[in-house]
């Protein structure tokens, strides 16, 4: 170490470190791809990406209706972010772990958490987040940024155990301002944890635009602070998302440490159903993003490849609607947990005081 420090001497004003940030895009708005960057995907896999996005969007629209009808509570829509969520989630292996925020409904759907349980959760019922034993996705985390250290801890634990898994932490552009983002990424760098940080930069944190969230030109460059790679991708391009995530997960599993992926996308809807985005952003801005729709461009691509037809689409929509109908039906059929349920999960065992309190019921 001393030797390395000595080498600095007698070099008055010099450049001692340089960095750059790359941007990856594969599929453009017209449905054309850059062949050299296209990840190897079978037709079936491409269809799966597309169909899952369609399901995510259909679910999202239904959830918004249910909220308007007062049948679920506040809901955070994902419209516009389907490629980021589905493309990254489908790059996961079953044994990988996932740490979402409150806006990852598309991720929950893609990894296989039952849609009716997602509705149940947004309806105000914790039981909707009782994840199946063979799925490794964390329950929704509402406090912004706070779950990122959990992802790093899980990754460190996997490394300690010698489990060859990867971990994904999702968060928003706003989330990068929290201290926990910083502490987590710094830990990940120091411990070379097998974790992939996916920032869904949807340009807004409620009413605060990206430029007011940080003076950094890109979110990706924040990785420089932690000594590992950051990359920006077109977040409305599911092939770019899939490729970047796959690569980063593979790197993590190889033992080569973390990656920060800035998925550059847009929140097409209000922040949540409690928000009115027209108070702080223009219609023009939103409309400028319409042609960049993440689903549309895959459809165009599939059409060119002969993978898409009107009939296919109709079938798909029917199947999807049926699945969402079923989710709605199931969610509404769930029996109320009843007040005693409040006491069941605070501790592994009920306490003396709680037992007395339970007598009220």
């Amino acid at each position, binding site marked *: 170490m001393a030797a390395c420090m000595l080498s600095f001497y007698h070099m008055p004003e010099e450049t001692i470190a340089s960095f750059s940030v790359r941007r990856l895009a594969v599929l453009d708005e017209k449905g054309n791809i850059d062949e050299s960057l296209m990840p190897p995907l079978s037709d079936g896999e491409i269809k799966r990406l597309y169909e899952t996005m369609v399901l995510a969007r259909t679910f999202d629209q239904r959830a918004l209706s249910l909220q308007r009808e007062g049948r679920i*509570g*506040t809901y955070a829509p994902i419209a516009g972010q389907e490629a980021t969520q589905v493309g990254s989630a489908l790059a996961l292996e079953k044994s990988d772990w996932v740490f979402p925020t*409150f806006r990852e409904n598309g991720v929950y759907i893609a990894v296989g958490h039952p849609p009716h349980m997602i509705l149940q*959760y947004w*309806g*105000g*019922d*914790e039981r909707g987040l009782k994840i199946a034993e063979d799925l490794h996705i964390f329950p*929704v985390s*509402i*406090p*912004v*940024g706070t779950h990122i250290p959990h992802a790093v801890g899980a990754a460190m634990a996997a490394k300690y155990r010698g489990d060859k898994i990867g971990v994904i932490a999702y968060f928003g552009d*706003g*989330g990068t*301002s*929290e*201290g*926990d983002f910083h502490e987590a990424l710094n830990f990940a760098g120091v411990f070379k944890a097998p974790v992939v940080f996916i920032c869904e930069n949807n340009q807004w*944190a*409620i*009413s*605060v635009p990206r430029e*007011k*969230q*940080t003076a950094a030109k890109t979110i990706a460059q924040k990785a420089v602070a932690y000594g590992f790679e950051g990359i920006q991708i077109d977040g409305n391009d599911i092939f770019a998302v899939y490729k970047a995530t796959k690569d980063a997960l593979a790197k993590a599993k190889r033992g080569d440490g973390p990656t920060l992926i800035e998925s550059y996308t847009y929140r097409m809807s209000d922040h949540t159903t*409690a*928000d009115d985005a027209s*108070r*702080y952003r223009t219609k023009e801005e939103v409309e400028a993003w319409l042609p960049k729709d993440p689903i549309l461009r895959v459809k165009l691509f599939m059409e060119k490849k002969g993978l898409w037809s009107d009939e296919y689409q109709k079938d798909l929509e029917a199947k999807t609607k049926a699945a969402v109908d079923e989710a709605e039906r199931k969610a509404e059929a769930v029996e*109320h*947990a009843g*007040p005693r*349920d*409040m*006491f069941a*999960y*605070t501790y592994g065992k009920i*306490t003396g*005081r*709680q037992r007395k*309190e339970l007598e*009220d*019921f």
Partner: protein
Amino acid sequence: MPQLNMVQAINLALREEMERDGDVVVLGEDVGKNGGVFRITEGLQTQFGPERVMDTPLAESGIVGASIGMAAYGLKPVAEIQFLGFIYPAVDQISNHAARLRSRSRGRYTCPLVIRTPYGAGIRAPEHHSESCEAIFCHMPGIKVVMPSSPYYAKGLLLSSIRDPDPVIFLESTRLYRLMKEDVPEGEYVVPLEQARVVQEGKDVTVISWGFMLHRTLQAVEGFDAEVIDLMTLNPFDEETVYKSVRKTGRVVIVCEAPKTGSFASELSASLAEEMMLHLKAPIARVASYDVVLPLPKLEDYYMPGTERIRKALAEAMKY
């Protein structure tokens, strides 16, 4: 006199005080262009400009920490934390710095800072949007804790809080924001800190509450000859008003929204058990939320004390 709800009353207090005092600045997440997620700061940025009504990055410790620096420099920052459940990252700044700056510098620097925060359950909000952890801040010498129960008092207490030379946590019940309107005078009037008020006189039992729970309490006491006290400032609390009432009634029910163990109801009860024991005719009852993790909306009505639980406690006290 205008009839205002609590949102409007707080907005008015901020606007008027900013007009009077150029040192008052407002900062927080979404408080500027959006006017706050509850619209408390609506119109302020338009009127006073973005240098004075600042949309900050999403960072609670940063918001409070920067406010401390502003306060020490001579401003009177009013910081908003979007929900009380998101104040925890700022607990370090509040406890280790805001509360101690005066002491650490032997009065050379002070911290005239207000942290406004919506609190409380009952509005069907997602996780972490329903906290009532006021007790934590009442255990921090150097911090004042204020919890208004109506538009009129909210305005008057907020003015006192902004003018107070010490850091104040000002907790606003989301449930109360639009629940009722009340005469709220325009122009300057203050409701002093550290003073409770007797909302209703009575002989048999003293019921102490604050914030939203005061309203449940007022409903519940019907039929009892109850003296109802609105604590308003929790830390430091108005011992005299409380003790005077208990000397008279000899029975006490404390109603609070936080989970019982370690709540501020416990502090009040302990103070009474220490100072007023000889006047007490009955056990001191705490009607509080259960000692469980705050549930999501489907169960929250079971969690918070309802009028029935309060009435049961009153009836029980009257048995003695």
